[in-house]
């Protein structure tokens, strides 16, 4: 029996997975509802396989995966997600989990994937693989930002007003506006809200 830990904060998904594993070759050893709880349970229960949701409170699935990658005795991990943005996709591809499956794909795929991972192979949902390729292409096409522009984007992300940004960078408010409009044109956004929303993707952090 393969010992499985489910880490998902959504009760409907967790209950359905539990039902799906019932009577199979997998033994459900625990359930976690947050990133921190998942790490704790992995250490305590030492499962063979971790079904890990990406978007969870108190540490995302990717944060958990990063931590586990530093450990020698980490369980094989299948990322189970309802959707990831480009930054998450690129991060996930770097962390190389044993499996990545979309919750919206055919559930049979999850079971197939779990089988492959159990036998030591890697398994990536074709749709996720396609999205990762696109995200990589997009990142390669992305305009290079100057250090000053990156700094300004970061300050916009923090919700600072032009006046505060100007004070912090030691320039006039007018200069900040000119810089911002140049960045809008460069990265193809229409306003600062959109820029703030895409800051993570643009800055790669």
């Amino acid at each position: 029996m393969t010992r499985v830990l489910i880490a998902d904060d959504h009760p409907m998904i967790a209950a359905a997975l539990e039902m799906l594993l019932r009577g199979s070759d997998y033994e459900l050893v625990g359930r976690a509802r947050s990133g921190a709880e998942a790490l704790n349970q992995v250490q305590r229960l030492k499962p063979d396989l971790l079904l890990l949701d990406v978007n969870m409170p108190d540490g995302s699935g990717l944060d958990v995966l990063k931590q586990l990658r530093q450990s020698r005795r980490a369980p094989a991990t299948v990322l189970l997600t309802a959707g990831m943005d480009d930054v998450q996709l690129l991060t996930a591809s770097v962390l190389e989990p044993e499996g990545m499956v979309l919750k919206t794909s055919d559930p049979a795929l999850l079971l197939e994937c779990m089988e492959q991972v159990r036998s030591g192979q890697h398994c990536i949902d074709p749709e996720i693989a396609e999205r990762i390729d696109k995200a990589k292409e997009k990142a390669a096409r992305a305009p290079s930002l100057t250090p000053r522009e990156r700094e300004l984007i970061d300050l916009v992300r923090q919700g600072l007003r032009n006046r505060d940004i100007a004070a912090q960078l030691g320039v006039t408010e007018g200069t900040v506006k000119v810089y911002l409009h140049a960045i809008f044109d460069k990265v193809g956004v229409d306003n600062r809200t959109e820029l703030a929303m895409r800051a993570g993707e643009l800055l790669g952090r």
Partner: protein
Amino acid sequence: MTVSGPQSMFKYQSGRVIAAGRVMLAFLFLLSIWLDQSQPAQAPAQTYALLLSYVLFAIGLAALTWRNWWLDARLAAPSHFIDMAVFTGIVFSTNGYTSPFFLFFILPLLSAAIRWGWRETTLTATALVLLYFAAGLLVAGTQSFELQRFIVRSGHLVILSAILIWFGIHQQFARLFFGLDELDRRLARDDDPITQALAFAMDEARAGSGALLLRSNDGQRFAGTRITKGTAHPLKVAQPLMREPLPVVLFDIERDRTLSRRNDGWHRFLPAWKLVNADALRELGAREGLISEVRSGTLQGCLLLWDMPDLSVDFLELGRELGRDAGAVIDHDALLSAIEEGAAARTRLSLARDVHDSVVQFLAGAAFRVEAIMRGSRAHKQLQSDLMELKRLLIEEQGEIRTFVSALRRDRELELAEAVEELKSLARRLGRQWSVECRVDATSDDASIPIRLQLDLQQLLREAVANAVRHGGASRIDVDVGIDEDRLRLEVKDNGSGFLPANGGTPVQPWSLKERVDRAHGSLSLFSEPGCTNLVITLPLAGAGA
């Protein structure tokens, strides 16, 4: 703001005010001396000749400059010197420093303060004081000289001069700008800000026609709006209307004249072709008017006004203010648009999250259940029970989505009573789903709440109930909803074991609740002990627009 009658005749017409004052004072001098048998004390024939000439000069000057801003500006300095000379002559011919007309020195002082600034007022005041002292010295030692009266009148002159110099300084900083509150009142959000800014400027300047042009991104062309005969049309101009960057220029294309102000404040007279694009102005039908610079936070352009019956030298200042105000209107609109876009983006993200958290996750869960049922080697009875459970979940979720969609379709706010009714219905469904007793009460329900809060309330209740059952094993959950001043309060009490798991271990935090509450800028407090958990959430009513 349209002003009519005598007020409009003198609104932004300081030249007319000075000319009219000069005519009235000249007549008053003549009349006073004619009525007073003791005057003129010295050189009567020459004094009458001087006064009569001055009356004719005042009338002629008023007639020439009444509707001619260029002549008004051109003749301002010479007429100012004539005023000073004539008033000095009249005062000397009517008993020198004891003249009853002494205080009429105020005209040159006032006209300097109104027309120019504090420097010119200071120069005028200095000249007048020196002339007065010279008169004092000339008559000092004579029998009629009264030192006390001389000192008192000198004091009057100095104090009056100081007040008018202050007035001149103050004039330089006085602004006509109507302020952001006024902007809020007057701006209609649906109208084009450029058209609104232009309409404000035309209204204030009583201009029949106008155009507001903003520089394109490539910096070469100008585009904007033109209003003629009360109708707005889009307008594009290939060349700048001003040949050099100036705050404001008055122009008269037919007479080839422009008037602007130098940096030191003095008037600058140049042929029209040197300062403005005469061909472009002629094409627009603007033969006489003003052009002022417009600067907003992000844009640059110009304001052109023509068909102005009251164009005067004062528009050198007013035009500058109108340009600033036009920039402020555009900035104000850009700011409101940014706020709206921000609010819309937040709502969009929030809706996306709600749909993701509920619909997408639910459907994924349902699909996993179907897969489990298909794969399970279950007995007929077990299979039927699983399918019944799935059907129930599907029907409930359908209800949730219907509630969610109807909330979105509503106007921006709904009555709290309505929201409470829907919460009660949700509580019944949650009670069935988790096999617990779940009740909702409201302590006050006569308020309105934004749609966004209703969606938050529903999601918070779902998560709170799920937490109470999953973590605390609660069997009864009581919910109370109310308004505390400007905040919505949601209190959830349950009889579970609290947030400490029954088998010990790390206490569980209501992360998902906390995250949602933080996003709504609310607060969450939790009291938890075995047998009783009390969760109090407050959310601000303001700033939660849909």
